[in-house]
């Protein structure tokens, strides 16, 4: 069972899990669902976490597994899930406005490329950390990163990149 101190450490990481999930999954409610599933899974197997090791890496690994399972399930019931995803769950505030443009371009990336890009850029994980979180060789991480950046660049350059950057500030 997780001690109070361990729980505090997990709680402190929730904002980062949410940020990553929000970028990974377009819908804010679905993103929080992903975080919730991750936290529940983590709590259920907390005895497997060794104190002293990197809790963040452990949680992101769990989130990756939950995410992959969700995608697999969604593929099985695509029509149903897409409809559920489309429901606006929470009003988006101003900050979400800038995110939406990028989000659209991000969404067009294959999910495994999106994961790599976001872990490197948002979480500033080392390539090795990304490789172990996703359970793939480091060479795969590098090629996914390169493809993600190339595709995102061409998607964003369809519009005026300089104006976009000003909006984002």
């Amino acid at each position, binding site marked *: 069972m997780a001690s109070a101190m361990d729980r505090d450490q997990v709680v402190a990481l929730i*904002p980062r899990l949410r*940020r990553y999930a*929000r970028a990974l999954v377009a819908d804010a409610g679905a993103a929080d*669902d992903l975080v919730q599933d991750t936290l529940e899974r983590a*709590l259920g197997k907390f005895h497997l976490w060794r104190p002293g090791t990197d809790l963040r890496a452990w949680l992101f690994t769990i989130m990756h597994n939950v995410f992959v399972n969700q995608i697999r399930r969604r593929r099985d019931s695509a029509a149903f899930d897409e409809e559920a995803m489309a*429901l606006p769950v929470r009003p988006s505030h101003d900050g979400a406005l800038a995110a939406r443009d990028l989000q659209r371009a991000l969404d067009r990336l294959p999910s495994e490329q999106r994961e790599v890009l976001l872990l490197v850029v948002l979480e500033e994980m080392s390539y090795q950390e990304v490789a172990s979180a996703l359970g793939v060789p480091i060479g795969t991480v590098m090629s996914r*990163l390169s493809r993600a*950046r190339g595709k995102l660049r061409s998607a964003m350059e369809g519009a005026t*990149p300089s104006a976009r950057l000003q909006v*984002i500030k």
Partner: protein
Amino acid sequence: MSELRISEADLQALVDGRLHDDRRAEVEAAVAADPALAERVTAYRAQAAALRAAFEPVLEEAVPVRLLDATRPRRRRVWALAAGLLWAVIGGVAGWAISEAYRPGVQAPRAQEPLPLRAAIAHAVYSPEVRHPVEVGADQEKHLVAWLSKRLGAPVRAPNLESVGYRLMGGRLLPGESGPVAQFMYQCEKGTRVTLYLRTEGTDHGETAFRYADEGNVHVFYWIDRKIGYALSSADISRDRLNAVATAVYKQLNP
């Protein structure tokens, strides 16, 4: 100038600042000598900055209660409570049915379950819903109110609680013991929810006082006004805060 071979991985690592000093100097020199490479590095850096800026605000958002709950060992408490309350109701109904079966003579008019208990069950069941918290959303408020009024057979209103920080999400129709009942759901900026439960009472009670009940961890303020019983429930906020919201509801319904 010496011809350097730059790998794709070198380029990515340069963008991410993950090259060792010696190698970085070499890669930087090679990039500087090749405008196309330089342009890519600039674009990728801008892209990373844009991504960070776009999602940075998420870090500042209040963490939803349900996520904090998920880190607690007994996060099933809301569901456990709902289940517990349901069993209590089933037990009560079964007990009533048995005693009724053994009672000879005329059937007495059946008393309704206590209002706060029913309201707390409805709150515990629907307020944790993420995707389908309401049946009809606040964007169709007029339709929602007209529909619920028609089904309950009495004019109902969804009070506007923005002055106390709660926005209407919408509402739903629920089965009561003797007919339809209504539930409106409200949410504050932090994601906490309160629900207003309305049911028609069998007899005209006039106006009753404001009452308070704790049903498990759900706080409930309730009162009856003529033929409609109102109950305002929340599991997330303090009794005082809920009292303030309940007062706002009461004032709006009785101007």
